[in-house]
């Protein structure tokens, strides 16, 4: 059912494009305004989140509709760990917050990875909503308003209150997570995950305990989503239940789909493209009495439906297919 063949090894042209993209990100704070630098930092954080989901969605073939729970949990962990009067150290709040997300992913994963297909989709969504309502309904946990994070974490060696420093800290983590996941993809562990996506029964017949592998992938993806959630909470200075809602989970799926699944580079591109579109839709001008920007949900909904109907394998996939059509048909059969 799922697309089996992923573009795992990136062609040279794409590698060059990625390197150029990295260069652009590196010089951006010196070129763009502070406002846009903050927006790009936010996009990089969401790119980390999208990559963590790609590990499940693209690599392992697990369609999780509850990934935002782990994204939001570590943001909340930071909010609770941060004292009201002084900043707490980055060096213990970050590991603690990521560990909280990883632990939640381990526990929830223990229940969900034994299900398949549509059950997995529904169950991940249901457990994520359980976490959502836990925070939404409890005043002690911030309730529907959420909680403020009063300070940026204190890193001692560098000052995260400085927006430019925060930007480069985020960029470094983006590159680090990407490099880590690329290594993981071609490691024996990553190969088993790809094997599970393509044919789980065969992997089990070959003697792999697929339950353990899937649980490990789910936990790792949860931990990396936690890393992104921590950064977002630190950047924006507050957390609210929306972070964990299923809209956030669905947005992450959309990011991965837009860019192309299973190679992590696509997730990054997709996250940037999706966030850019979202901002564009929200900033649409007012024509006469009609405030186009107010109805961003309509445009986003139509866009998503259009992508699924006309370009189901993402924008890159659509370009790819257009090129495919020009090829002689013997080469098309590979698809």
């Amino acid at each position, binding site marked *: 059912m799922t697309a089996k063949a992923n573009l795992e090894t990136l062609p040279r042209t794409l590698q060059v494009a990625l390197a150029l993209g990295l260069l652009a990100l590196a010089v951006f704070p010196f070129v763009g305004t502070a406002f846009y630098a903050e927006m790009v930092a936010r996009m990089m954080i969401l790119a980390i989140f999208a990559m963590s989901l790609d590990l499940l969605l693209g690599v392992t073939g697990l369609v999780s509709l509850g990934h935002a729970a782990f994204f939001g949990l570590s943001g909340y962990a930071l909010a609770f760990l941060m004292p009201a009067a002084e900043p707490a150290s980055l060096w213990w709040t970050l590991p603690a917050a990521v560990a909280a997300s990883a632990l939640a992913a381990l526990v929830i994963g223990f229940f969900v990875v034994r299900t398949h297909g*549509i*059950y997995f989709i*529904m*169950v991940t969504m*249901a457990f994520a909503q*359980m976490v959502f309502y836990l925070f939404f309904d409890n005043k002690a946990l911030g309730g529907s308003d959420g909680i403020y994070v009063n300070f940026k974490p204190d890193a001692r060696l560098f000052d995260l209150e400085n927006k430019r420093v925060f930007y480069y800290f985020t960029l470094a983590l983006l590159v680090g997570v990407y490099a880590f996941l690329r290594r993981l993809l071609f490691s024996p562990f990553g190969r088993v995950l790809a094997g599970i996506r393509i044919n789980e029964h065969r992997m089990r017949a070959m003697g792999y305990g697929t339950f353990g592998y899937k649980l490990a992938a789910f936990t790792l993806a949860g931990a990396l989503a936690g890393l992104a959630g921590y950064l977002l909470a630190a950047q924006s200075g507050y957390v609210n239940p929306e972070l964990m809602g299923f809209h956030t989970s669905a947005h992450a*799926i959309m990011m991965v789909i837009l860019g192309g699944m299973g190679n992590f580079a696509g997730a990054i591109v997709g996250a940037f493209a999706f966030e850019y579109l979202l901002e564009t839709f929200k900033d649409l001008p007012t024509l006469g009495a009609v405030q186009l920007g107010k109805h961003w*949900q*309509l445009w986003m909904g139509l866009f*998503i439906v259009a992508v699924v109907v006309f370009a189901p394998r993402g924008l890159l996939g659509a370009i790819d297919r257009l090129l495919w059509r020009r090829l002689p048909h013997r080469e098309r059969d590979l698809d």
Partner: protein
Amino acid sequence: VDLANFLIQLLNGVQYGLLLFMLAAGLTLIFGIMGVVNLAHGSFYMLGAYLAWSLASLTGSFTLAIVVGAALSVLFGLVLERLLFRHFYKRDHLDQVLLTFGLIYIFEEGRSIVWGDDVHSVQIPDLLSASIPLTDNLSYPVYRLFMSGVCVVLAIGLYLLISKTRLGMKIRAGAFNRDMTEALGVNIKLIHAIVFAIGVALATVAGMIASPISSVYPNMGSQVLIMCFVVVVIGGIGSVRGALISALLVGLVDTFGKVLLPHISGMLVYMLMAAVLLWKPEGLFRQ
């Protein structure tokens, strides 16, 4: 908890469970027969509630509003099936998730444009606005009994339709083996359109009859959608009987949880789901 209170909670639990069944039945049928995950199912519930509110204020009659609304929802289901869903029956679940997520945005914004973002209340019809006294100071509203009654009638109707009629036989055959059924001359596309429209109508009618007691508000579909997912997962996907039993179970656990264990009541239903997953990962009545 004394007897009268217990009775009230029991009736509330059953009524909530039956309402969930109306939604879950459509969800499980649409998945079981066409293989589509429909995240927008909760939106039909919301649209139903708004439809009941606007039609009731337009026509002045709640009964008329429900009849007209039900007819409109069948039409809406047929159009939606023809334009979009039909092309997604054989697609990846991931595509279906995205399509129906996009539809949630479109329906929510459409609702906002047509009806606005205000919370509304719907008047209970005079005939059903009475209460039945249980003790000196406790009573039970007739309307809730009426709701349960409507759900039971529709549930029996659905059962008879699927297991006793010729159309139901074709539906079951199509779910069992689509190609063979088609080869025998059954218009399977028509069958699918009918099943989809039934699912949409059930969800919309559920929203309409729930509107007087739950009030009408934006995003009212998403919470009920999650509950339906829980019901369908516990009952086993594709099983209408499983959906009925698990909907009643979820309704009772949720209602009594709120009374007996208020601190963790929000979690109880999910704990129930987790327990079922450990015991039977495919649900209680997987076919």
